[in-house]
């Protein structure tokens, strides 16, 4: 409830109900009391969580841990949703179990409306370049997009009859998407919100390279995720330019989302809020801290570090997550700089990433 209060205060435009650090340390104590691994992590640092007062002192759980063990404060069987990271050939996937997704949904909608729906005076039509939720029931991204679709569909009943998702069984419905975009551009009744993954956009651009339309004023596009071998990799600049051309959008209306299965909150490029391209903004209930890779301590603004993510909405798993994503804090937010390279391999001993990727 305390985490939800942060979200509700944000929606109401009210100040945060309590200090971030106060809830963070209480959450960390609660989680360590239920998840022995989190208590061991703190003990190994010589930390007594009962006396910790700053969120930054809470040890962060490496994202890889979610691939190897269950990190949940509640007994097995009580989960209502389980999100999994994208699959590999060994089918080793990170797992994030939720006892209740109400806080997740509230947080996703609240910050999505703030950063992605900013400036909209009417609810847009939605086009999704991702599978429908019934095809990806364990995808946190699919769940979030479905929440957006449900929220926006409430505004105009006819929209629910139109096709929304244009990826199914791993294939993009190129013709149907072309028709839908053409129709929405021609009618120009409402803005359009396009949601999709980077690799889906790349596949679509390759499948229909000459298509272009001019989406109605106020339209915007969200892109998220890396490529993970699912398509050719396209530099972010190039992809943004191509998407702007194809949809007839201004570059600042193409908004990158940064999220991960192990979290309950998302971050957005703040271009619709006035930041420069590439600067991501955070909700008041989550922070991205750049930490130095050796000691995992915060580095000053402007210095590159690894993203340590503190998420008050991660109530039933781990408040702090340590990623391998390189970030730099800048005025107004942070910039994503890609994944930190691993140590150069030596010898023929297999690396865990290779093993999980099933690359042999």
């Amino acid at each position, binding site marked *: 409830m305390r985490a939800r209060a942060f979200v509700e205060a944000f929606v109401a435009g009210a100040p945060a109900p309590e200090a971030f650090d106060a809830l963070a340390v209480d959450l960390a104590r609660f989680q360590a009391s239920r998840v022995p691994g989190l208590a061991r992590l703190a003990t190994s640092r010589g930390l007594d969580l009962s006396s910790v007062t700053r969120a930054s002192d809470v040890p962060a759980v490496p994202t*890889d*841990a979610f*691939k190897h063990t269950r990190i949940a404060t509640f007994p097995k069987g009580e989960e209502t949703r389980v999100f999994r990271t994208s699959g590999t050939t060994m089918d*080793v996937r990170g797992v994030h179990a939720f006892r209740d997704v109400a806080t997740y949904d509230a947080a996703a909608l609240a910050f999505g409306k703030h950063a992605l729906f900013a400036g909209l005076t009417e609810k847009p039509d939605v086009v999704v370049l991702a599978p429908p939720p019934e095809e990806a029931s364990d995808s946190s991204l699919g769940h979030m997009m479905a929440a957006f679709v449900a929220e926006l569909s409430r505004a105009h009943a006819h929209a629910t009859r139109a096709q929304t998702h244009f990826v199914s069984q791993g294939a993009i419905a190129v013709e149907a998407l072309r028709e839908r975009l053409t129709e929405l551009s021609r009618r120009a009744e409402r803005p359009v919100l396009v949601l999709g993954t980077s690799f889906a956009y790349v596949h679509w651009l390759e499948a229909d390279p000459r298509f272009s339309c001019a989406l109605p004023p106020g339209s915007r596009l969200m892109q998220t995720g890396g490529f993970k071998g699912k398509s050719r990799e396209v530099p972010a600049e190039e992809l943004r330019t191509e998407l702007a051309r194809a949809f007839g959008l201004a570059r600042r209306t193409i908004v990158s989302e940064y999220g991960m299965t192990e979290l309950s909150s998302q971050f957005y490029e703040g271009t619709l809020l006035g930041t420069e391209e590439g600067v991501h903004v955070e909700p008041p209930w989550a922070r991205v801290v750049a930490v130095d890779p050796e000691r995992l301590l915060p580095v000053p603004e402007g210095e590159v570090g690894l993203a340590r993510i503190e998420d008050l909405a991660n109530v039933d798993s781990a408040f702090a997550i340590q990623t391998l994503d390189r970030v730099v804090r800048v005025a107004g937010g942070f910039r994503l700089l890609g994944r930190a390279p691993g140590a150069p391999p030596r*010898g023929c*001993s297999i690396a*865990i990433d290779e093993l999980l990727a099933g690359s042999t």
Partner: protein
Amino acid sequence: MSARRAFADVAKDVRAVLDAAATLAERADEEWIASLVESTGLSREGVALGLRVALEREATDDELRLFLSRVRPADAVTVVLAANVFVAAARAIVLALAAAPRVYVRPSRRDPVFARALVQALDDPRITLVDEVVAHGGVVHAYGRDETMRALADTTGMPVWAHGAGLGVAIVAAEDDRALTARALADDIVVFDQRGCLSPRIAFFVGDPAGARRLAVSLVAELDDARARVPPGSLAAAEAREIAAARDVALVCGEVLGEAGAMVAITEVEQGASCMMFPPGRHLVLVPVASEADLVRHLARFGTALVTVGSADEGRTARLAPAWARRARLGSLQRPRLDGPVDLRDVWLLPPAH
């Protein structure tokens, strides 16, 4: 394609290479050892241990017959070597000589010392040191990362016998002698600081978690002793970071004994989850499993990444190891018989035209 070579000729070649390698090891002077230390990243003692333990010294006729049967004849072979398991050059060269009348050896760029010295010592007109892989009518025998070997097949247009990355797994039963098991595991872990595909990275303990923990305590003590005799090699900052991050993962998954230089994690793995693993160093993940049936399910998840399986009991190893994996006694994982390549997975990568 060349015909298969006569056994006697191959045996002669193999023994010539082994003799040359043994002579190199025996006459190693300080300067040469220092250059190996620099190129391998191992400690001086680690280099000496690799030469003493893992360099092939002999082969029986039966082993050599098997060896020859595992070689695919070719007009020429280019051997592309990987870094760090420096003595691997000896077996790689005899495999190539058994396969073809012309052999080109491209040492690892980072770790060329042993391979260069061996080729020079052999002074065999059939063997040429090269800096680059040049396409010819034969094949490539490559050792190293999967992506590198795939690129070799793509760029040279030659078939590549791919000896890729992998790992070793140990199987321990509750009734095994704990002290002997811990000593044997430590012996296998210390050689090459786990940078070879024969190094055990995970051990499954068929028994209760308390038994696994007792073994872990003994193993940490053995690894500490080994550190005094054979100090670990140097670690790059990125390697140290990855080990520290793996330690955090291990702490979330289970208990970690030992210090940063030699850690043993005891983690129970739930059905459907995967075992964690430390990066190479001197670390082991010890997984208690309730039964051999559970163990087989775990092993299956590694697929062909599994290069060797070791235990104290040959029957147990034979019963549980997948067909392609080398089987060895604990303590001897780094001394595979000279009966073929170290890696028995027999993977050939074909160029795109095929």
